[in-house]
C-alpha cells in the first residue's frame, strides 16, 4: 500500500468516525464535534494530495487548508453560540428536545 493510500484510508476512517458520532449521539455539542472531525478529515485529504500530487510546488492544497481552518473556526463559534442560546431557552442540549419546528 502506498503512503498516499495510507493517508486516504486514515482520512476516510476519521470521516466515518465523525459521521457515526454526528448521527448517533444526541448531545448537540458532540454532534458539532463530529462535524468538526469530518472537516478535519477533508483537510487531511487536501494535504495528502498536495504532498503526493504532481504539482507540489504551487502550494494550492496548503492554501485551501488554511482557508478551510478559518471557516471551520467561524462555524464552531457560531454553532456553540447557538447551543448556548438553545440551552438558555430550553434548559437542555438534547437534540430530540428542540423539536418545535418538527412537522
Amino acid at each position, binding site marked *: 500500500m502506498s503512503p498516499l493510500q495510507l493517508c486516504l484510508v486514515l482520512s476516510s476512517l476519521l470521516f466515518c468516525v465523525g459521521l457515526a458520532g454526528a448521527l448517533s449521539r444526541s448531545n448537540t455539542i458532540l454532534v458539532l464535534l463530529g462535524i468538526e472531525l469530518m472537516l478535519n478529515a477533508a483537510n487531511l485529504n487536501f494535504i495528502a494530495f498536495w504532498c503526493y500530487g504532481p504539482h507540489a510546488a504551487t502550494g494550492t492544497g496548503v492554501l485551501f487548508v488554511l482557508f478551510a481552518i478559518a471557516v471551520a473556526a*467561524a462555524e464552531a463559534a457560531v454553532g456553540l453560540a447557538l447551543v448556548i442560546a438553545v440551552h438558555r431557552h430550553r434548559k437542555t442540549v438534547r437534540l430530540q428536545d428542540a423539536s418545535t419546528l418538527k412537522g
Partner: protein
Amino acid sequence: MTYAIIIIAALILGAAVAAMLSRNLIHSALLLVGAWAGIAAFYLWAGAEFVAFAQVLVYVGAVSMVVLFAVLLTRQGATSAPVEPDSYQRAIFGFITAGGVAGVLLGAILGTPLAVQATPTPASITVKEIGIQLMGPHAAALLIVGVILTVALLGAILIAAVDKPEDPAP
C-alpha cells in the same frame, strides 16, 4: 517513514473513537484535543509546517477552549457532565450508515490505481511562498475570509448574549 504515519494514524483514530464513545462530555472534549494534536503531527509529517502550527493555534488552542466553555455553560449535573443514554435505534442506524460509507470509501481507495511517483520528492513550501500566494493570487479570498470571521464572531456574540430588557429610565 511508514511506521511514523501508522503511529500517528493510531493516535488520531484512537482518540477520536474514544471521544465519540465516551459518556463524559469533558472527557470527550479533552480526547478530541488529543485527536487535533495528532492531526497537527500528521501535517508536520507531510511537510506542511505552517498548516501544522495553524492547526495547533486554531484547534488545540482556540476551538478547544470554546468547546470547553460551552460544555461548562450548558452542563446540568452538579459534579460532572454525564450524558444520558442515547436512544439505541439512533445509534444503530448511525453506525450502519457510517459503516456503509466507510466500506464504499475504502473500496474506492483500495481499488483505484493511483498514479503516484514511486519516490515522491519531499514536498515543502516556505512561509514566504505562502505569503506571496496569499497576497498575490488569493488576496480576494483572504479579504473574504477576514470579513466572514468578523461577521461570524459578531453574530456569535449577538446570539449568545443575554437579551435583558432595558431598565426604564427613572
